[in-house]
């Protein structure tokens, strides 16, 4: 990714750094920074403080900017009444499992497709990539029916974490990302390991995986956020209150709960992913751009 000094963009640096261009640049930058903060951070501020307001204050016009009489009770109510600890734990448990399953199966598959190249490997890869064209909504019914009664084994996966973990392994985008990364690892390294008598598993474990830490990190983050953000699938396959994810839990409880408590719960549900993002934002951004084609 070329960046900053040297590369010229739409408008030349010279034009932006003197006279009128400079004034326009700084004005525009200030407007955009202020505008973006208002548009993207503003609602979050509204959410966090709104949940501290009393029902009366929320209905007040014009709306208040700061809660006059902060009610942390809303957050406590949300935590207790919606059993948020349990919901958060469930979501966390599904996310960790999804990461492990994806890392093990998807990197093994990508390794095979990239380095071992068995027969029909390309056909299998093409069939996998083909699933990227099929929208999730199209498959929701037959997938659900399949989970109710797994073919051959006749196991019902309803309320079992495997109903979230296993379908997530079938992720063509991640396999593609991993394969592209493994492709860039020189064949000579593989050949050297082979000469030293290393088995394919050993090569994967001690050469490929250590070199691939950045992409493994990206895939893990994607898996965590996917579980945290998914809604319809967990709603269908985790019907019991004890196995729900946090998003589904909030949705289910929203009906009979005061709105500031629902918002307080939404804030709590958002905290883990926001923290993950703030810590790993560099990796997330590089992963996003690594997956995109060069235009």
């Amino acid at each position: 990714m070329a960046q900053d000094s040297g590369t010229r963009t739409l408008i030349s640096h010279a034009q932006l750094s003197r006279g009128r261009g400079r004034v326009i640049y700084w004005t525009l930058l200030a407007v955009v920074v202020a505008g973006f903060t208002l548009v993207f951070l503003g609602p979050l501020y509204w959410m966090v403080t709104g949940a501290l307001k009393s029902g009366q204050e929320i209905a007040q016009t014009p709306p208040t900017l700061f809660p006059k009489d902060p009610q942390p009770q809303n957050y406590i109510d949300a935590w207790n009444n919606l059993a948020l600890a349990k919901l958060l734990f469930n979501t966390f448990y599904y996310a960790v499992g999804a990461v492990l399953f994806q890392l093990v199966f998807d990197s093994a598959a990508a390794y095979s497709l990239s380095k071992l190249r068995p027969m029909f490997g390309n056909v299998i890869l093409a069939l996998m990539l083909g699933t990227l064209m099929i929208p999730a909504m199209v498959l929701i019914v037959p997938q659900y029916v399949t989970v109710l009664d797994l073919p051959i084994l006749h196991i019902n996966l309803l309320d079992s974490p495997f109903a979230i973990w296993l379908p997530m392994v079938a992720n063509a985008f991640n396999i593609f990302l991993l394969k592209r990364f493994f492709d860039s690892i020189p064949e000579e390294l593989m050949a050297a390991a082979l000469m030293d008598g290393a088995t394919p598993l050993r090569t994967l474990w001690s050469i490929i995986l250590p070199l691939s830490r950045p992409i493994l990190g990206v895939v893990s983050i994607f898996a965590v956020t996917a579980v945290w953000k998914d809604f319809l699938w967990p709603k269908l396959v985790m019907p019991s209150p004890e196995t729900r994810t946090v998003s589904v839990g909030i949705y289910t409880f929203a009906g009979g709960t005061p709105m500031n408590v629902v918002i307080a719960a939404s804030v709590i549900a958002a905290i883990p992913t926001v923290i993950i993002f703030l810590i790993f934002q560099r990796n997330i951004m590089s992963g996003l751009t690594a997956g995109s084609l060069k235009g």
Partner: protein
Amino acid sequence: MAITTVPETPRKPGRPPSPYSARPQRTSLGRKVRDNLTGHTFLIGAVLCFVVFSWYPMIRGIMMSFQRTRRGETTWVGWDNYSRIIADPSFWTAWQNTFYFTVLALVLGYAVPFFVAIMLNEFRHAKGYLRILVYLPVMLPPASALFLFKFYAYDPSEAGLFNAILKALHLPTSQWMQSPEMTMPAMVVASTWMNMGGAVLIYLASLQNIPGELYEAAELDGAGIWRRIRHVTIPQTRLILALLAMLQIVATMQLFIEPLILANGAGAEDSATSVAYLIYQHGFFQNDLNGAAALGVIMLVVLAGFSAVYVRLTAKQD
């Protein structure tokens, strides 16, 4: 690291040989089978998951759409499910709403991120901060973000954020989700806010790959900013633009959680019913899994039509 030389073997064009498949002197049949077995063993976990949760459901969905299951007995009913689904008046409403959403989302959710990316690419300060800001909503669980919009932004009383702003500007306030005309635009705004970060980052990455000389040359030829965007930026990012248009169409056609949370499902006068919501209704409320499967197949066909047009358009340009 010692450099080992692997004896040359005839290569297939375009693909460097794998050290495992290119082992020379010992290419006996047994060896080959063994190498292949190793390769397939590594693949098996992922392939099984694809078979069970992706490839098989695909075929099963198509089969289900032609079947009817009553009291555990499955019979072949031909096009019955399809005619029943299409005869339902909400079928057409749902498609209309979904298309309307897709078009609005293309205008807003597709064009806006592109211009935001072009603008961000010009800034040399606060870049990281702005990028984090746009991507932040993408990280929120959709239910959280949508409850925020539902309760605060789209509150039909004057205490709602949007109404408070409108009132402060002395503009007429709106009923938002309670008014059938405003339902779709309001859903598109919420959805764009939630999702635009991903597109902005992908555009930014592809903008950074445009060679600066092109702008240089255009500027020397006297092209202003708009003409530089038209004749350099857009052609140079054409592939990404086309790809994201396709992804945006596929994503918006699956509109589901916005109507479910913002409009409690169907919305005022069915103004929010979407095709995906109808699939959910049929499958999981009306106990009509076969009808829902048929709807899924119809959606697949429509999207395949879009993909075909897309492939044609992009192939023509290359």
